């Protein structure tokens, strides 16, 4: 099983663990992740402004390059996934947007959203299969109570992301079961951690991330897992009323598969 792989800037700097364990686990599962040779920054956030084309062009460039490779494009960082998926959707379904973007890009062949973008979790669920993962687990995390933290970018907007029910998701809970641990369902798992607001309103970011961390702890979780570097940062730095540890889900997957160093 071979996929194109888009790591993104943060996974090369602050979130090296997310990337490193993701690759190791994939290898253990017999999945080949081919890093796109000429990927660029996704743009960081998906601009909601309809005529804002420039900030989305680098995402289009990566998507077009993945199209040339011919494989599904796997992403790992929630934010990158959100930007790539939304940009791809706009290229496919918004003729005005794709015409403008293609005009700027001057590609040999116009790009119209042909690449299929999937998140690493979707790859695990739909391509590998959680049952297959469970079979390959050598070091099950039995007895660990794990709270899945989705944040906002992974699931919304639901019509475009099409990963799971944004209000009552199950994909990470099913992942947790596959690695032998017990999922803890808590109401704030799909609420925002505060995101970039930590740059200008520390108090608000603290309020948001404390809400998440305390809710997970209140429901009996030993730890929180996430797919998003920014969520991890906020829950570590800003959730100061709770000391619940936060990990990338790939780290636990690598641990369960016995490939964590």
């Amino acid at each position, binding site marked *: 099983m071979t996929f194109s792989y888009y790591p993104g800037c943060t996974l090369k700097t602050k979130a090296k663990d997310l990337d490193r364990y993701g690759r190791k686990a994939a290898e253990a599962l017999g999945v080949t992740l081919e890093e796109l040779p000429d990927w660029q920054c996704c743009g960081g956030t998906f601009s909601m402004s309809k005529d804002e084309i420039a900030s989305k062009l680098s995402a289009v460039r990566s998507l077009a390059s993945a199209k040339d490779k011919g494989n599904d494009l796997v992403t790992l960082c929630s934010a990158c996934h959100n930007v790539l998926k939304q940009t791809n959707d706009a290229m496919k379904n918004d003729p005005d947007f794709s015409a403008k973007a293609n005009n700027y890009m001057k590609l040999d062949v116009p790009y119209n959203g042909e690449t299929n973008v999937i998140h690493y979790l979707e790859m695990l669920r739909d391509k590998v299969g959680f049952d297959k993962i469970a079979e390959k687990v050598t070091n099950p995390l039995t007895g660990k109570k794990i709270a899945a933290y989705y944040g906002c970018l992974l699931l919304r907007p639901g019509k475009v992301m099409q990963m799971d029910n944004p209000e009552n998701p199950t994909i990470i809970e099913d992942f947790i079961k596959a690695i032998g641990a017990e999922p803890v369902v808590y109401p704030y798992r799909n609420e925002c951690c505060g995101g970039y607001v930590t740059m200008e309103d520390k108090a608000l970011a603290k309020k948001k991330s404390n809400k998440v961390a305390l*809710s997970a702890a*209140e429901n009996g979780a030993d730890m929180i897992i996430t797919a998003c570097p920014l969520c991890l940062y906020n829950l570590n730095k800003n959730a100061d009323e709770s000391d619940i540890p936060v990990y990338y889900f790939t780290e636990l997957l690598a641990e369960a598969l016995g490939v964590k160093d």
Partner: protein
Amino acid sequence: MQRIGVFVCWCGSNIAATVDVEAVSEALKSEPGVVFSTNYQYMCSEAGQNMIKDAIKEHNLTGVVICSCSPRMHEATFRKTVQGAGLNPYMVEIANIREQCSWIHKDKQTGTEKAIILGKAAIAKVHLNAPLTAGESPVVKRALVIGGGIAGIQTALDIAEAGFDVDIVETKPTIGGKMTQIDKTFPTLDCAACILTPKMVDCAQNEKIHIYSYSEVTAVKGFVGNFTVSIKKKARYVDTTKCTGCGVCTEKCPVKNVPNEFNLGMNNRRAIYIPFAQAVPKVATIDADYCNMLKNGKCGVCSKVCTAGAIDYKQQDEIIEERYGAIVAATGFNPIKLDNFDEFAYSQSKDVITSLEFERLTNAAGPTSGQLLRPSDGKHPHTIVFVQCVGSRDTSGCGKPYCSKICCMYTAKHAMLTREKYPDTDVYVFYIDVRTPGKNFDEFYRRAVEDYNVHYIKGMVGKVAPRADGTLDVQASDLISNEQLHISADLVVLAAAIEPDKSARPLATMLTASMDTNDFFTEAHAKLRPVESPTAGVFLSGTCQGPKDIPETVSQASAAAAKVIGLLCKDKLTCNPCVAHSDEMLCNGCSSCEKVCPYGAITYSDKEFRMPDRTTAIRRVAAVNEAVCQGCGACTVACPSGAMDLKGFSNKQIMAEVDAICK
């Protein structure tokens, strides 16, 4: 050559603002056959109609063209007008220069040009019109009401009161509908059961009314005055003529874990059951999905305890056929499923309930005998949050775009009754708008706010988070104070949008009655014919036509009954003379027309023909039963040899119109 008069209507400014009516009547004056042309402000008024009558007499008109609104609006009016002046009513043609012209164009020049073209087409057609005479068909003096809720009950009672036989077909084992589940009714707070159950009993006792409970309509044939309807009486495995409704079987049945739909699954019933004490008919029904005897042949307890010998495990579905003159759709509504609204944690917490569930929790005959207790732990809730518009006025695609209309009032009722009975309870209502148009409705809502201190907060709830301690963290915005609120609630009640019952769409197909995009039945005219379907002989009662509260439903139910009575009073109906006929000399016997006819009006038979060489030949040819044909024209399109034609809309007439437009 016809002598044609043209009458151009201004329709006040409806037409005259975008169409130069003077120019239209002037231009049409020079069309062949036109001997008179004029325009007038309101052609449908008495003065306008007299103008037409006078012109017919003065100019010896043989045909009339009226350029006005849609023929759906006033064709009948103008046919009557010309008839009054001695002309055959089918010598009138309407050029629709309002809906199809003035209302859709902004530019007067374009509108005027188009109106002239439409007028020319009508003139070209009227040249080929021939006088038509309408036949008559008898009326079956019996009505069918589909749905036995308060709408169907009221319609049936009113029809029976006028002396006509009426049948009610209800899918559930009892009539009564949603109103049986309601505790009290706004704005007077009288008990729903006290006002409904006597009407249910009246239905059962009225010899003019026959109730087919636990039954469904499976096929409808025929047309106004003469429908043939197939009704499936579902097997209830109980002989209704023997069952006395004593209820012993429902106490002895060993299968105790069947979710009780009457209490919305909040408690259980047995596999053999009577929905509630006042059910009509009060007979038991076996739920085949749960009955051990029917599933694996092991049990038979109900049969043993039934002293009347009414249990019949071998009973089969039975299909009967009945004939009716009129059909009333009264299929009602259901609250929507809340799968798309997981932010309110309905599927995650037992203490998040719908308003209809709340209704059962406060009903003396409900699962808690009327005590307001939390479903999770049976404790009395001290803080209750009501959320309005859950799925109503929702343009995101998760819910319904329309206002469900009843929620503001029943929520005010719930809030008020809670504060009345449990003054130690804090009650919050989150709303987008409070909509209380209706007699004594706003006063009712104000009582909830002013006399009962219900906290009404303008804003929507974003999330309901179940906490580990059993409380519900309600996160909401207060739009007036521009604040985010967190309320720790014990119970959250969701005012779920209402939608038409799922049976409505297949029924509409059977009745060839039209529906809107939300599956509500469409009325023949939104303002002037609100209880009739565009399909003749089909009438609408209650929420199947749109969201309604009980007073409105009952009004509409009686209005539908009045329309049915008006129809059944007639011994004969005038048929539409614009029916199909087949030219036997052209018919090649292919059966194409027979296959497409939705009314079964076409039959084939072998007929002897004299051939040009004086021999005779037997050929298979089509014949149209004019009493059954509804003039839809499907056969004329299907006929490959051009033998089938529609009177009043012949192929030649249509082509003449097309030629006139394309000239």
